[in-house]
């Protein structure tokens, strides 16, 4: 698609109509360097020097920024005030564009009549048809055009400006007449002054008058002349001053109306109301038919116009730019329709968005059927969603959107998003693997660092969620294990602790106090288990008395162990007579029936000579018997 060399300038100028304050910067603000995309474009007086980063530079207090806005259509990057945005990543633009895409085509009768009226005005003002009559007709049609909603009363503003010029012109005529009258008065004053100077006549003094008398006479003569001429001279000065003031008023009035009219044209241009620009420039030429058409704009804007269009800013330049913009918008719409037919939605949407940026109010865009626009809307929404997903690093959603876009738009270029997605996934997976290793090794510092990095790369990574859940569940398990440990310890349920000792060893790794408690529990349980094993071995030999004694001795230290108590109960049955003997001995000893008790211990020893119980009981009571004896 061939583009006019004027187009960048057109885009640059019209883009100022967008409210860029709400835009999202595409890249961090680099005050000292323009973006690469914008670099080849003819830069406005712009950026680096006017950026606020240079303390030596004088402050620039231009309205709404420090330089002229510039749009690089090649990179779709818009530059203003030292910041750069992609026009497709612009909230306001996106919102406005989506609103347009959802809007019904403006094909109502009113719209059709309005467009016909505007075309008629432009036609009547064209150089081929312009005449005082057509000028008046065009002027009378402006209020009619203003009556349509699509006009936004801009035609009224144009009509008001034209009327102001005409009023100024009538004032100019009045000033000319006043000056003529003043000129006549000046001439009369001049004549009167000359006459007054000639009529000065004092009584002459005689020849005998002395020199002093003659000097006095001459002085009086001069004073009288001056007094007689004074009113005329003063009036003459007044008339000259009034004439000069009127002349200045005329010049100022003409300049003021010109500037106001030019300002209106520039305003239409910035509003992208190119049809109104054409109407205004044609009115301008008709009214100010001769003389200078140079726009009275600021130095920055003047330099911008000169550097982008190669021409000084004039009404004709604005007229040309407006026509070029209109042509470009029409071409953009045609390209959109063609690409839509080819199912190349990405290119089609870009062409339409470009056309929309330039010619939002052009009939070609306003009359585009909603059904056609909706296809671009679907693509735009998904594209914007993809940008958002990539921005927030939701690569799962981004991948889904890429696949959707590939299906809907066969020209969709997935290389950039896929590269971003795949790279992020790969690097994130590497960090997760490191985090897993660190978790296994118990290296908390590395675990946290790797998890943080993986999270920053891909915050919504499902694997990250799984790993986090696993780690946190491990933490939960550890916490629960500690709670269980404390509870079992308070219940003296050492058997349960022993059965789950692997779990508790892991859980108490970071709790030295619990570690000591666990160590004691395990040592006790080892004693119990050893006793049970020994008891079992003894019982296998048929020595139930010995087996019972083994568990009985251990159970005195660990009366709460269920397994030990179970074995003790079983063996008590097997060695009932012996147990009865020992029990009786113990009971009698407790009642200080030492003789009886000793007799029972002796009986028990006879029953089971290796009996430790009997041996110690006998030894203990024998000493008592000998000692007690008087």
């Amino acid at each position, binding site marked *: 698609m061939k583009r006019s060399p004027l187009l960048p300038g057109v885009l640059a100028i019209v883009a100022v109509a967008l409210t860029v304050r709400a835009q999202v910067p595409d890249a961090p603000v680099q005050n000292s360097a323009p973006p690469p995309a914008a670099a080849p474009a003819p830069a406005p007086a712009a950026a680096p020097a006017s950026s606020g980063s240079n303390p030596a530079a004088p402050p620039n207090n231009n309205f709404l920024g420090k330089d002229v806005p510039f749009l690089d259509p090649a990179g779709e990057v818009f530059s203003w005030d030292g910041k750069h945005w992609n026009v497709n990543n612009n909230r306001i633009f996106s919102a406005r564009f989506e609103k347009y895409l959802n809007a019904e085509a403006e094909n109502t009768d009113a719209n059709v009549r309005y467009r016909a009226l505007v075309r008629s005005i432009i036609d009547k003002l064209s150089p081929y048809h312009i005449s005082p009559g057509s000028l008046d007709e065009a002027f009378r049609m402006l209020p009619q055009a203003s009556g349509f909603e699509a006009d936004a009363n801009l035609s009224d503003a144009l009509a008001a400006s034209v009327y102001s010029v005409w009023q100024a012109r009538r004032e100019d005529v009045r000033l000319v007449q006043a000056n003529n009258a003043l000129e006549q008065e000046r001439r009369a004053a001049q004549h009167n002054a000359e006459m007054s100077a000639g009529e000065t006549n004092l009584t002459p003094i005689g020849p005998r008058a002395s020199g002093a008398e003659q000097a006095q006479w001459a002085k009086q003569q001069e004073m009288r002349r001056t007094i007689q001429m004074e009113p005329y001279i003063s009036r003459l000065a007044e008339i000259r001053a009034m004439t000069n003031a009127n002349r200045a008023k005329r010049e100022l009035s003409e300049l003021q109306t010109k500037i106001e009219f030019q300002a209106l044209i520039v305003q239409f241009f910035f509003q992208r109301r190119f049809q109104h620009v054409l109407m205004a420039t044609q009115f301008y030429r008709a009214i100010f038919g001769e003389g200078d058409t140079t726009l009275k704009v600021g130095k920055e804007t003047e330099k911008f116009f000169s550097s982008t269009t190669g021409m000084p800013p004039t009404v004709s330049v604005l007229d040309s730019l407006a026509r070029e913009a209109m042509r470009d918008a029409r071409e953009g719409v045609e390209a959109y329709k063609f690409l839509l037919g080819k199912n190349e939605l990405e290119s089609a949407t870009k062409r339409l968005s470009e056309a929309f940026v330039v010619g939002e109010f052009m009939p070609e865009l306003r009359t585009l059927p909603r059904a056609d626009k909706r296809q671009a809307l679907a693509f735009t929404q998904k594209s914007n969603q993809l940008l958002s997903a990539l921005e927030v690093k939701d690569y799962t959603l981004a991948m889904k959107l890429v696949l959707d876009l590939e299906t809907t738009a066969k020209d969709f270029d997935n290389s950039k998003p896929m590269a971003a997605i795949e790279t992020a996934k790969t690097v994130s997976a590497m960090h997760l693997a490191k985090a897993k290793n660190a978790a296994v090794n118990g290296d908390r510092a590395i675990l946290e660092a790797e998890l943080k990095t993986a999270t920053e790369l891909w915050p919504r990574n499902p694997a990250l969620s799984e790993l986090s859940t696993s780690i946190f569940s491990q933490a939960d398990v550890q916490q629960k294990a500690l709670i269980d440990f404390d509870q079992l310890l308070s219940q003296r349920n050492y058997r349960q602790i022993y059965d789950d000792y692997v779990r508790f060893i892991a859980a108490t790794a970071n709790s030295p106090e619990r570690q000591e408690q666990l160590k004691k529990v395990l040592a006790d349980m080892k004693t119990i288990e050893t006793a049970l094993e020994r008891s079992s071995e003894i019982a296998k030999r048929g020595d139930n008395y010995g087996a019972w004694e083994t568990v009985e001795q251990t159970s005195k230290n660990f009366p709460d162990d269920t397994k030990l108590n179970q074995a003790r109960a079983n063996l008590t049955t097997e060695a009932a007579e012996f147990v009865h003997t020992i029990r009786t001995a113990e009971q009698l000893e407790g009642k*200080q*029936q*030492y*003789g*009886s008790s*000793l*007799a*029972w211990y*002796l*009986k028990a*020893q*006879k029953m089971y000579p290796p009996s430790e119980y009997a041996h110690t009981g*006998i*030894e203990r*009571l*024998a*000493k*008592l*018997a*000998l*000692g*007690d*004896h*008087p």
Partner: protein
Amino acid sequence: MARRASSKIRPLWIACIVGALVLAVIGGIVVQNQGGDAFRTVPELDIGEYLSNANSLRGNNYKVKGVISQSLLYSRETGRLYSVEVNGSGGDNVLPVLVPPELSYLNLQKGQHYTFLLEVGDAGILLARKMQKG
């Protein structure tokens, strides 16, 4: 004919002699029995009672026949404590018997049969007052 008269007397004499012998034997047995039990006036120890509540028998004297089983403990002042196996109504039992130094002249050895004259001490320990072998 004279021979017939002398044979009638002989069976009477034989019967008298036999009766006398029987009486002599019975008498001898009785005398023998009464004369071998040195502590025949002392009551036998009720083993069952002793095993259940020796303290209730404190201060009483009993006689017990048993076999020396083992020496449990020796003290120069208080004597030597022996375990003595006895046979009672409840089966075989072993009683602790303290032999005081006064009876230390007896050379007690395991397996010897003795009849003990025992006093039940303060803690229910059986204290040997007299001992007779056999």
